[in-house]
């Protein structure tokens, strides 16, 4: 298997960057887990470590999605990329900007007073979860994303194929870019601040990113087992449609208790309860397509694709819906239950998605038909078993916290330090397991297709 268009190789730059950040994310995540037991273990405090953990996550997933898109669009449009140098510039500009932001976080972690305000914005860290990146970086990110989208759009315009897969992919990416903007203005009122902040966070994770996931799922099923495009595309439209029908108004499940009107209890409760439906449909779609398959060309790719569909449903769907009703959420809101949901959702919906895309597209970029697959399976089981236990321990910690703090009235610090101690210990141990899986994956990424005795095409 070789790639059809040389410019698709740009995807590898993004994948490599994504994977390095992934390793960083897991490493600092392990430090953060240990800081639940010994807060002073690192030079940097938990706040900085955690900021690095979640920002590395967001950036590496975005880099992975960009890489995947750079691969998919030329393939679907059946042409070379419109402008390769711009794509390469966009890549390096992103790397430089991200590195500068990370240095800023670390400087601020060591010298908190260095985070001064210039022209009304903080220069190192905006102090808003997930979108801590300062305003100057926001501008660079927007420029980078616009360059990327423009390049994609011009590539499609070259042949005007307008396939459904790339149409939905681009729709998701444009929606993603637009939904970054509500996070870019200052509001004096903290309630309004959080209201718009959720537009970014929720409409990314439970909106545009899931739309992109729907498009990539169809693409991967087509590539790995040669499933019929027409059928895949129809179900893709239905899936991503249901994602947005439930997900947009499902934003309301963040507006129960932050100072917003009570009608959000009805809107958020009803629509977010339905959010697992499209994710279940994606699982069914993956299984149905696989069952009908006669010709599996990439077993590992298919394996990761199906695993992504399943854990997307379990993590984002089930672990979300258990605490999405306001009557339940008033007890669980602001507890470790949310942390548990966050971990399994990001792992299932997006980490496995990017890994699946890598295993589906990388062999052709490396010019191999077959490759050694044992490491890919090892990485999967190390990571998945570890993540499942990490999530179960955090869920247990959250249940104890809800009962003791919210029902019995014990102090937050007392519950965390005494009654949750064992959960933190077990979580950190499985964190080591997850790191092992990650390192196997990183090694496999760099080795894939380079082992001895493989058939070249």
């Amino acid at each position, binding site marked *: 298997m070789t790639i059809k268009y040389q410019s698709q190789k740009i995807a590898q730059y993004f994948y490599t960057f994504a994977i390095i950040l992934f390793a960083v994310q897991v490493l600092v995540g392990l430090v953060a887990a240990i800081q639940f037991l010994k807060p002073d273990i690192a030079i940097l405090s938990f706040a900085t470590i955690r900021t690095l953990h979640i920002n590395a996550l967001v950036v590496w997933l975005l880099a992975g999605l960009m890489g995947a898109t750079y691969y998919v669009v030329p393939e679907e449009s059946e042409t070379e990329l419109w402008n390769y140098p711009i794509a390469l510039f966009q890549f390096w500009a992103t790397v430089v900007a991200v590195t500068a932001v990370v240095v800023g976080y670390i400087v601020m972690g060591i010298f908190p007073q260095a985070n001064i305000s210039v022209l009304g914005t903080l220069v190192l860290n905006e102090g808003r979860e997930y979108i801590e990146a300062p305003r100057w970086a926001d501008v660079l990110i927007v420029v980078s994303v616009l360059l990327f989208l423009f390049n994609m759009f011009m590539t499609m315009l070259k042949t005007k194929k307008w396939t459904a897969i790339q149409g939905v992919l681009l729709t998701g990416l444009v929606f993603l870019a637009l939904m970054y903007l509500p996070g870019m203005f200052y509001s004096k009122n903290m309630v*309004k601040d959080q209201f718009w902040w959720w537009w970014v966070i929720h409409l990314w994770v439970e909106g545009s990113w899931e739309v992109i996931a729907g498009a990539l799922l169809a693409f991967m099923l087509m590539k790995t087992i040669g499933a019929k495009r027409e059928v895949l595309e129809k179900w893709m439209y239905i899936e991503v449609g249901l994602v947005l029908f439930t997900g947009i108004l499902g934003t309301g499940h963040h507006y129960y208790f932050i100072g917003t009107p009570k009608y959000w209890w009805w809107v958020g409760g009803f629509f977010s309860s339905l959010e697992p439906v499209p994710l279940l449909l994606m699982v069914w779609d993956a299984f149905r397509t696989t069952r009908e398959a006669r010709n599996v060309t990439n077993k590992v790719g298919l394996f990761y694709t199906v695993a992504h569909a399943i854990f997307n449903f379990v993590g984002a769907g089930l672990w979300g819906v258990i605490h999405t009703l306001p009557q339940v959420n008033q007890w669980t809101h602001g507890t470790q239950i949310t942390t548990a949901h966050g971990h399994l959702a990001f792992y299932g919906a997006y980490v496995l998605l990017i890994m699946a895309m890598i295993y589906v597209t990388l062999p052709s970029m490396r010019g191999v038909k077959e490759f050694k697959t044992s490491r890919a399976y090892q990485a999967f089981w190390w990571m998945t078993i570890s993540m499942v236990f990490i999530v179960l321990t955090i869920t247990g910690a959250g249940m104890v916290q809800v009962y003791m703090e919210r029902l019995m009235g014990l102090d937050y610090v007392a519950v965390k330090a005494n009654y949750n101690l064992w959960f933190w210990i077990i979580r950190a141990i499985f964190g080591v397991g997850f790191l092992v899986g990650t390192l196997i994956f990183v090694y496999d990424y760099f080795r894939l297709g380079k082992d001895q005795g493989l058939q070249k095409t």
Partner: protein
Amino acid sequence: MSNKAARNLFIFGSLFFFVIFLGLTFDTMKQIDGRAPEVTKEVDDGKQVWHKYDCIGCHTILGNGSYFAPDMTKVVEKKPAGYLKKFLMDPKSTNKNATMPKLGLSSKEADDMIAFLTWISKIDTNGWPPKPILAQAAGVGGAQQTRGQQVYQSQGCSNCHSINGIGGTSGPDLTKVGAAGKDAEWHMKHLKDPNSLVPGSAMPPYPSLSDSDLKELAAYLVSLK
């Protein structure tokens, strides 16, 4: 269903729900200001201090944030302003068990932060966080309480101190305070003016307690062994 029909359903259905969402957003924006006190300059300055030190990197506020440190929504109802100010400026010397690092807040920044957190505590959050069921119940039922226990409860001592695991962790644990060798007289003096016996103490004085209440409360504390 044809692919074209599915595509149109996706496009127009999504737009339909987004328009509803925009309408609700518009209505919510009109209502938000009425659900909290006015944002004064101090509150806004305090909000900027909140962002400057990336407080959300550890804490939650209105239930959103990092789950590593306590939620700040109602903190001013639980902790006296004098304690909060000392704590914000130097956490570990105020409460030796504190995890929070000394971030270098100035006196003004600490005052602004308290103004911001006071404003936050007054937002109409639809009843969140709910009052803990058992703690509520313990105050109204159960065995007959001594006068000293009642004073302990009515003064909110348990917001900072804990006995047998129930209560706050900002102040010292009182489960065995009676075994520490301090007599009732010492406790009475300490309650009236903590600083006179423990220089630099963050505990607020309780000068308004009557002599009989002081005596009962001190007796109760001495009895904890």
